[in-house]
């Protein structure tokens, strides 16, 4: 598995450096988008995976699901930090400021807060059984913010953020090769997340 991931990552990096043309008007640094989008994608995936295992733990009471839920949150926390930093750099490049509380920036910041609160809660509860229960409940409680972040928040503030690659209108506003590399990078990041989830401790 690691061999495949290393091969894929190397290919994608090579493609980004040599194959993808520089973004018009933004230059080479704008290629950080190939890092930002996959990282943001995995941080959202990690959030739902963590909640999924939290629900599984509450139903079955098996500690292995608690362990998986915690691991997804820890990985998600790393990825959400990476996504935020790379997003801020891209934002500086395209909008002229690192941060301006665009709805997407708000969303990812809330995600940092949720991951951080979840991990703080885990660190604060010494008893293993109690910790598993309490953090699973919090994980599921925090999922409730998703409809707000997805449906209500974007109506409250004007956004400059580009539409997601797979947007509701079903349009693709990218070069085919650009898109192919981006999708490969998203797949690669997902594979890294998946592999790290299965890592033996």
């Amino acid at each position: 598995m690691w061999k495949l991931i290393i091969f894929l990552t190397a290919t994608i990096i090579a493609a980004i450096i040599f194959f993808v043309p520089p973004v018009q008007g933004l230059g080479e640094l704008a290629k950080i988008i190939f890092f930002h989008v996959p990282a943001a994608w995995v941080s959202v995936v990690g959030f739902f995976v963590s909640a999924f295992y939290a629900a599984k733990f509450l139903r079955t009471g098996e500690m292995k699901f608690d362990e998986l839920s915690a691991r997804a949150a820890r990985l998600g926390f790393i990825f959400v930090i990476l996504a935020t930093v790379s997003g801020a750099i891209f934002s500086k490049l395209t909008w002229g400021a690192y941060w301006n509380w665009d709805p997407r920036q708000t969303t990812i910041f809330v995600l940092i807060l949720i991951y951080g609160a979840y991990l703080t809660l885990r660190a604060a509860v010494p008893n293993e059984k109690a910790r598993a229960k309490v953090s699973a409940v919090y994980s599921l409680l925090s999922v409730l913010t998703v409809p707000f972040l997805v449906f209500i928040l974007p109506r409250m503030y004007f956004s400059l953020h580009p539409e997601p690659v797979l947007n509701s209108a079903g349009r693709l506003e990218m070069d085919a090769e650009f898109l192919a590399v981006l999708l490969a990078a998203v797949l690669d990041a997902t594979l890294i997340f998946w592999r790290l989830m299965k890592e033996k401790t």
Partner: protein
Amino acid sequence: MKLSNFLQAAAIFHKDFLVGLRRRAAFAAMAMFSLTAIASMSLSVGGILIEPKLLAALLWVVIFFAAGAGISGTFEDEAAAGTLATLKLYAAPQAVLFGKMAFTLASLLALTIFLLPVFLILFDAAVAQIFLLLATILLGLTGIAAAGTLTAALTVSASTKGGLFPILLFPVTLPIFLPAISLTEAALTGAEFAPEFLLAMIFYDAILTVASSILYDFLD
């Protein structure tokens, strides 16, 4: 004799109310916290007229952290007194949750009755739409009470408590926080407001109440 869940919840509300009256610590902490926060801000800006948007945000920040000072001990105090286990033995879990939630809402309402006039006087703010302000506060407090009661139950088993409660509560209550600030601003200025924000708050209050009720069962 077995009481219905509603009567059990009412009995817990009544008990908490009496204990609250007798001990006063939680309420005094909340009231003094809000007073200190308002005074520190009002003092430091010293009579400068503050924009309504900022005022609205300040009001909710004070309410949020004052709530954190007061209601984080909802279950904690019982656990410290050694009565939580007995309470859980005698009453149905849902009755405990809703009794506590009702008492939390009542203490938050009492806090706001104290805090709001002080806030408006010290910042010399006029209210253009009083009913909008009251509706917003009521809806906001309901959401904080619903999420806050469950969060208070979560932190009982934590060993490090300092600051944990607001950290956990903030992301969860953000969906009521942001529309509340926006509506409060409209209530202060008299500008037109978006009715869908009120709907969004009602929607989230309902969601948080139902979710707290479902999730609380797993904590026993």
